[in-house]
Each structure stands twice: as structure tokens, then as C-alpha cells.
């Protein structure tokens, strides 16, 4: 009897899931709108990129705070705050008359997503019966895996037909439904307690991330070796070193950076970073290429990246299963070869890529991502010792349970 997931818990997970989904859909559909935004607001590439960069910067500052937020505040208050912030951000972008205001909308959305992304998994871990945790983690991961496949195509269709502002308008009612659903269903399992936030650490995280992103973004204004580029990057690097020293020496660091002493683990983290770097780089380049170089509509740009994105979503549940059978090394190795082949093809045909080439080469690259991304994470967590492996265990469970999830989905059809 206790193994049943109650309707309320299920609704809570769905409500939080809708938020994560909407966050990623807006993020991935934005890249398709860049050429349009550049025309509408009369801005260049290095300015328009702030739509994505600023948003991700805010999300990456908020996410490390999730453990503290969860301990200090009620889950429902967090959810409502996140959702209302997101809705406000969407409303601002819906009507924003200037690009600056558009960015402010994205910042507020970033605050909302940053709180909401870990919330779904927290609700699952805390409220779902232990036997069903793996299954629900699978559902949660599937939601975030499908979103990047939906985003560009959705964005392309909306931009080409009714205009980019409708991306926000269409998501608005969905977010309101999620808000109502969550307000009704989210329950509190653990008692909130006062936790002390280490403010210097938070400040250092902000300086590190903001410094690096601002420095690299400034390269787009022309001169790579200007003070505007180098100074923020150096400040960012100094801040990360101080943050590391501090997190090793104090009792309750915001992020436990001491696990990076394990070089095997940090190797995985670096590779994971690079892979995500390449994936986001591709999702920036390709839609722009299709629209500006090949002179196609946003709709076509969305369609061209759809097969690759869909392949990525399909592999999210499959790759864990493959890893269970043959271990992590082989799928990752094969993935790396696929990735190198895909990128090599992109480079060779660099300035005269046809739409078909982009579609096919991107498929090859996404095969790489599908085979390696999840496995790098799992393999990385498996290098941690017993002390840190609690988190590792949870992730391993989720990969093993994917098949269970797929069977369930088939039954629901």
C-alpha cells in the first residue's frame, strides 16, 4: 500500500516538471529567434547572445543554493516563488519594448528556473515511496530531455508564423496551470530549519561566474586581448581559487569543492563541461547559420535541428541501459568517435554547408552526445568514495530504471 504514489505527490512532480520543461523550452527556442531579434531591436550577435547567456548565468548561480533553500524554506513557498518569478519574467518579455527589458525578463525567469530545476527532484526524493524513486527520477529526466528537442522546432514554428513574442504567450497558461496544480498539491515532509548561508562563498560564486561570462562575452566586441576581456576573466579565476580554498576549510560550504581533489572525478567533470560547451555552441551556431547564411526561415531552422535533438532525447533513457550491459568505456569511446566525425564534417564543409548536410552532421554529433553525456555523469559519480556516493547512488538508480519507465509509458499509450 505504501508503494503507491499518491495523486498529490504525482501532481506536485508534474507541476514542478512543467516549470523545468518551460525553462528549457524557452532557452532552446531563443537561439532560433536570434536573427529575428537582431533585426527587430537593431542589435548584433554579441548583444543578442545575452538572452541565453544572462539567463544561464543566473540559473547557475541559483542552483548551488538549492540545498540551503530547501532546508530553510517550505517546498510550497519555494515552488510558488519560483513559479511567480517565472511568470513575471515571461510577462515582461511578452511586452518588453526594449532589448534591455527583454534581458531583465530573462534574468527573472532565470531566478525562477534556478529554484525550480532542483525542486522537482527534491520532491521526488522526499515524497515518492523508495521503490518508485528510480521510476519517477526517470520521468523527471525524460521531461528535461524532451524539452531541448521540442524547443527549437516550437520556436521556429512560432517565430515564422505568429512572431517570437508568442513563445512567451503560449507558455503563460501552461505556467499558470502549473502554479495552481502545485499550490494545491505540494506538501511539506521535513520541517524547515534555519540554516546559515555562507555569504562570502555566494559572493565568490557570483564573481567567478559573472567574471568569466562577462569577460568572454566582451571578446565579441572586437578585440580579444583588451582589458575588458582579460580583467574580468582574471578576477573570475582568482575568485574561484579563493572559493575552493574556503570550501575546503569551512564546515558548511555552499558547494563541496573538496571532491574535486579526486582527479578521476574532476576529469569527468571537465569532460562533462566540454561536452555541454560543444552542445550549446552547436545550438547557437546552427540555427544562425541556417537563417543568415542559407537564408532560410526560422521554421526551417527549427526543423533541421529536430532529428538530431530527437535522437538526443531518445538516447537519454537508452544510454544508461547500454552502460549496464557493456560498461561506460565502450559507449563513451564510440560516442567520442561519432562526435569527432560529426564535428570534422562540419569543419570541412564549414562555409558551404547545405541544409541537408547540417541535418545529417548534427545527427552524427547527437549520437555522440547521446552515447556519452549521461554515461560520463554516471561514470564520474562512480569514482567517488562511500562518503560522497549517496548522491552517486541516486543517479545510478535513475539510469537503471529507465527501462521500467519506458515500459510504463508503453502501457499508458
Amino acid at each position: 500500500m505504501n508503494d503507491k504514489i499518491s495523486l498529490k505527490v504525482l501532481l506536485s512532480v508534474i507541476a514542478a516538471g512543467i516549470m523545468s520543461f518551460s525553462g528549457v523550452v524557452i532557452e532552446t527556442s531563443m537561439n532560433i529567434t536570434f536573427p529575428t531579434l537582431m533585426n527587430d531591436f537593431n542589435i548584433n550577435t554579441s548583444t543578442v547572445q545575452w538572452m541565453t547567456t544572462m539567463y544561464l548565468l543566473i540559473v547557475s548561480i541559483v542552483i548551488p543554493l538549492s540545498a540551503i533553500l530547501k532546508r530553510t524554506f517550505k517546498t510550497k513557498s519555494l515552488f510558488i516563488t519560483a513559479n511567480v518569478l517565472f511568470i513575471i519574467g515571461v510577462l515582461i518579455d511578452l511586452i518588453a519594448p526594449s532589448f534591455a527589458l527583454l534581458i531583465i525578463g530573462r534574468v527573472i525567469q532565470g531566478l525562477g528556473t534556478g529554484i525550480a530545476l532542483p525542486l522537482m527532484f527534491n520532491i521526488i526524493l522526499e515524497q515518492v515511496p523508495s521503490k518508485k524513486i528510480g521510476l519517477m527520477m526517470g520521468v523527471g529526466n525524460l521531461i528535461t530531455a524532451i524539452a531541448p528537442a521540442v524547443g527549437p522546432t516550437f520556436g521556429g514554428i512560432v517565430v515564422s508564423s505568429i512572431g517570437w513574442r508568442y513563445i512567451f504567450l503560449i507558455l503563460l497558461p501552461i505556467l499558470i496551470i502549473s502554479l495552481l496544480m502545485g499550490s494545491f498539491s505540494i506538501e511539506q515532509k521535513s520541517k524547515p530549519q534555519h540554516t546559515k548561508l555562507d555569504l562570502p562563498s555566494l559572493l565568490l560564486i557570483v564573481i567567478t561566474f559573472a567574471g568569466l561570462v562577462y569577460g568572454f562575452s566582451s571578446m565579441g566586441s572586437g578585440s580579444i586581448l583588451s582589458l575588458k576581456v582579460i580583467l574580468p576573466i582574471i578576477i573570475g579565476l582568482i575568485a574561484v581559487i579563493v572559493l575552493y580554498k574556503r570550501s575546503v576549510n569551512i564546515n558548511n560550504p555552499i558547494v563541496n569543492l573538496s571532491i574535486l581533489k579526486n582527479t578521476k572525478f574532476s576529469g569527468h567533470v571537465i569532460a562533462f563541461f566540454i561536452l555541454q560547451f560543444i552542445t550549446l555552441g552547436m545550438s547557437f551556431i546552427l540555427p544562425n547559420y541556417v537563417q543568415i547564411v542559407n537564408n532560410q526561415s526560422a521554421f526551417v531552422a527549427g526543423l533541421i535541428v529536430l532529428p538530431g535533438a530527437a535522437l538526443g532525447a531518445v538516447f537519454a533513457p537508452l544510454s544508461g541501459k547500454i552502460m549496464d550491459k557493456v560498461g561506460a568505456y565502450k559507449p563513451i569511446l564510440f560516442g567520442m568517435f561519432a562526435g569527432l566525425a560529426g564535428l570534422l564534417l562540419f569543419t570541412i564543409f564549414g562555409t558551404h554547408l547545405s541544409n541537408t548536410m547540417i541535418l545529417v552532421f548534427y545527427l552524427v554529433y547527437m549520437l555522440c552526445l547521446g552515447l556519452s553525456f549521461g554515461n560520463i555523469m554516471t561514470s564520474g559519480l562512480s569514482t567517488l568514495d562511500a562518503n560522497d556516493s549517496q548522491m552517486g547512488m541516486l543517479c545510478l538508480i535513475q539510469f537503471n530504471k529507465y527501462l521500467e519507465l519506458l515500459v510504463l509509458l508503453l502501457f499508458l499509450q
Partner: protein
Amino acid sequence: MFNTVQQISGAISTSIISAVVAISQMNPNYSKQLGTAIGSEHGFILLIILLLLAAIILNKVVRRTK
């Protein structure tokens, strides 16, 4: 850890790649079309170097046995 890395990596990536593309777009000798194409090509080259680096690191850190 992986969650945060995923977001900040995306932010840094978008800023660097857009800068690479923007630099070629600003070259007065190129049309916007050609500038974007060349900038994208530079982007691909950067990405392939990074992937090679990732492959080398992974080859060292991923356990070969089951």
C-alpha cells in the same frame, strides 16, 4: 555539481561562440552572410579541439572494465 556545471558551461559556451561568430561578422571585407559562415567555421574548429581534449581526458579517467 553536474547540474551547476551544465548551466555555467552553457553560459560560457554561448558567450565564447557568439563572440567568435561576431568577430567574423564585423570584418568589413565580408558580407553578413560570408562573415557568419566564416565565423561558424572558426566555431567548429574550436569545438573540435575541445572535443579532442575531452576524448583524451575521458580515455584516462573512465574505467575500462564493467
